């Protein structure tokens, strides 16, 4: 019988487990993730509040000069770099690399406790474009959960890495896409969304029983309700795209998961202004480029807001941050959109404000901050879009990695990207057999903004109003996640390979370290045995990073796109 996975429970497991023994005695459950103890990083976004913030302050603005490398781990076979968010529970660090390789490491020393290398359908993966990177795992009920590019979800024993269950959720042979995003654990379920977007399909989001691996429900982000079906003319829902490829979060007060959905296919429609009746997919195309609230027990849609009705620009809502805040007795949810706007909602996804993070935006003139309605949208007919380039570039004004909200400063630290593109819009037909193929609808090319050079920026802003306190600029947009801490620090892993630490109040650079290759993944902080650590993934390559060498040259020309390392820092 064909062996479907490999596991290396090394002899050092016993010793390593002793070091972190108290750990594994405690179960990671919904209440614990909600509480978010300061020593751990239990879910992709840190906690269900999605702050990407650590309350640890041992490493702080006064002693950051003493920060140095504590240990590194090389996962191997890092095709298209390393893009995942490490998780930490009770002194054990869990993270994933390309091909859904999962490692459990001693958080203090980096010693390998166990590793898991799933046996994947390599022939299928060789046909995929958005592959074979993996963006993270989930923890819950003594298990580690990870999705695969060939359409499966695994439940592993957190102590040994042994497979407890595996469930095939989508037919990747036909749909070509699989799972690259981290799952979310909450209330006995593991939630994971498939890739989609420019891939003709219906972009499902799944809930799986964490104990048994049995599928509980499935929600189709393309025409998943009768109401939504009416927003896809000419049966275009059959190849609509959608998906939810980054993890959202869980709101226990409403018993809902909040999730951002991907764009419709083709990316670029040729409808012109009559998009309600003309073009490839006439109508608003619900629930693509939307934020949705699903009942965690049933998968039924409870509320939604479509950030970009009939998205004709690939500026979707798949960014997984749903930053939970309270101010003056009001509860808010802050969600960044790829187009460069940041939406502020109430807990039922009613729009409370919309503000701009990015300067170079012209796919719309504006978005009404009171209603979220698009004002002055640009809908292209067949032909060239060159005289006034489309801004931002397809990589977005905001990319999929996360910002950070610091409750001590009250500021939201977020990366903005300033770049544009020319297009030649063309009619295409979705190809669904023998395997689904990309459906773009245009040729395109990156160009600088009309106002000047391409650049990126870290902004420190009020998350509700968008008021800017300070900004730091980068010659090329950073692509990694941001971390802020109670030590008055903001960490930014940049694309050239430098990890920067800034004063959270002023933006002054306090420390930097060259990790030797570009960053495009996660960064977290945790504590083991009373010592604080910062862990960051380094390793470049992928759908956006691959644009850097031809467009920016310099260090990117020689930067590997098949390498990576987890680098962990502590005070010397």
């Amino acid at each position, binding site marked *: 019988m064909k062996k479907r996975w490999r596991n290396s429970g090394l002899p050092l497991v016993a010793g390593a487990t002793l070091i972190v023994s108290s750990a594994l005695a405690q179960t990671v459950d919904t209440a614990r993730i909600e509480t978010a103890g300061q020593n751990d990083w239990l879910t992709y976004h840190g906690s269900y509040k999605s702050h990407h913030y650590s309350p640890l302050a041992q490493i702080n603005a006064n002693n950051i000069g003493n920060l140095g490398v504590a240990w590194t781990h090389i996962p191997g076979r890092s*095709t*298209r770099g390393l893009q995942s968010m490490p998780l930490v529970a009770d002194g054990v660090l869990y993270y994933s690399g*390309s091909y859904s390789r999962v490692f459990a490491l001693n958080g203090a020393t980096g010693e390998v406790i166990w590793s898991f290398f799933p046996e994947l359908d390599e*022939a299928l993966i*060789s*046909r*995929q*474009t958005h592959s*074979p990177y993996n963006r993270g795992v989930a923890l819950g009920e003594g298990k580690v959960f990870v999705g695969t590019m060939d359409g499966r979800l695994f439940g592993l024993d957190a102590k040994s890495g042994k497979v407890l269950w595996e469930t095939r959720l989508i037919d990747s042979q036909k749909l070509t896409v699989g799972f690259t995003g981290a799952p979310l654990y909450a209330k006995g379920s593991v939630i994971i969304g498939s890739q989609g977007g*420019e891939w*003709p399909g219906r972009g499902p989001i799944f809930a799986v029983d964490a104990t048994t691996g049995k599928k509980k429900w499935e929600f189709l982000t393309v025409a998943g309700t009768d109401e939504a079906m009416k927003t896809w003319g000419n049966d275009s829902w*059959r*190849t609509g795209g959608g998906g939810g490829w980054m993890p959202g979060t869980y709101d226990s007060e409403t018993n809902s998961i909040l999730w951002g959905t991907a764009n419709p296919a*083709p990316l670029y429609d040729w409808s012109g202004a009559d998009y309600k009746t003309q073009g490839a997919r006439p109508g608003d195309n619900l629930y693509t480029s939307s934020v949705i609230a699903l009942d965690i027990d049933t998968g039924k849609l409870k509320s939604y807001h479509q950030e970009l009705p009939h998205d004709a620009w690939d500026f979707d809502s798949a960014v997984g941050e749903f930053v939970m805040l309270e101010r003056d007795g009001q509860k808010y949810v802050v969600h960044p959109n790829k187009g460069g706007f940041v939406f502020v909602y109430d807990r039922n996804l009613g729009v409370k404000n919309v503000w701009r993070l990015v300067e170079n935006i012209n796919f719309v003139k504006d978005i009404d901050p009171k209603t979220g309605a698009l004002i002055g949208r640009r809908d292209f007919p067949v032909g060239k879009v*060159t005289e006034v380039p489309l801004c931002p570039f397809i990589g977005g004004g905001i990319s999929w990695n996360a910002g950070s909200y610091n409750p001590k400063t009250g500021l939201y630290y977020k990366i903005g990207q300033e770049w544009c593109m*020319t297009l*030649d819009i*063309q*009619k*295409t*037909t*979705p*190809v*669904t*057999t*023998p*395997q689904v*193929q*990309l*459906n*773009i*609808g*245009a*040729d*395109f*090319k*990156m160009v600088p903004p009309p106002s000047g050079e391409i650049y990126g920026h870290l902004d420190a802003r009020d998350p509700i109003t968008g008021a800017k306190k300070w900004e730091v600029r980068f010659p090329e947009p950073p692509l990694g996640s941001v971390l802020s801490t109670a030590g008055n620090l903001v960490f930014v892993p940049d694309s050239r390979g430098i990890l920067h630490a800034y004063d959270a109040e002023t933006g002054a650079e306090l420390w930097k370290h060259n990790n030797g290759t570009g960053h495009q993944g996660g960064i977290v902080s945790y504590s083991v045995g009373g010592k604080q650590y910062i862990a960051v993934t380094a390793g470049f*390559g992928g*759908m956006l990073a*691959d*644009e850097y060498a*031809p*467009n920016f040259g310099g260090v990117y020309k020689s930067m590997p*796109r*098949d390498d990576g390392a987890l680098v962990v820092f502590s005070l010397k």
Partner: protein
Amino acid sequence: MLKLHLKSLPAVLGASLLCVVVARAQSATPAPDNGSFDVEQLFAGTCGFCHSDGGRAAGRGPQLMNSQRDDEFLHNRIKSGKQGAMPAFGESFSDAQIDQIVKYIRALKPREG
């Protein structure tokens, strides 16, 4: 629309495969027009995601216009791909169609204006 009629293509096997493609695709998409394999639209639908400006500029993938690679290299790269960089299209397109794609690449010129 992506045109998949194969009267100009000699590969019987490929033709058989794509007749199936057309038949099965009808339930999901409009039936393709008659005519030759439309590589320009294939680029706008699929290849152009990495090969910028329809293959005229370097992007996620290399510039194809004026490629120094020989036809055999291009054919094999399209068919078999390259791990982590280029998908394999050997199960999606026949050898004859891949030859059409290579021919299209050889004819690429800078855009006017």
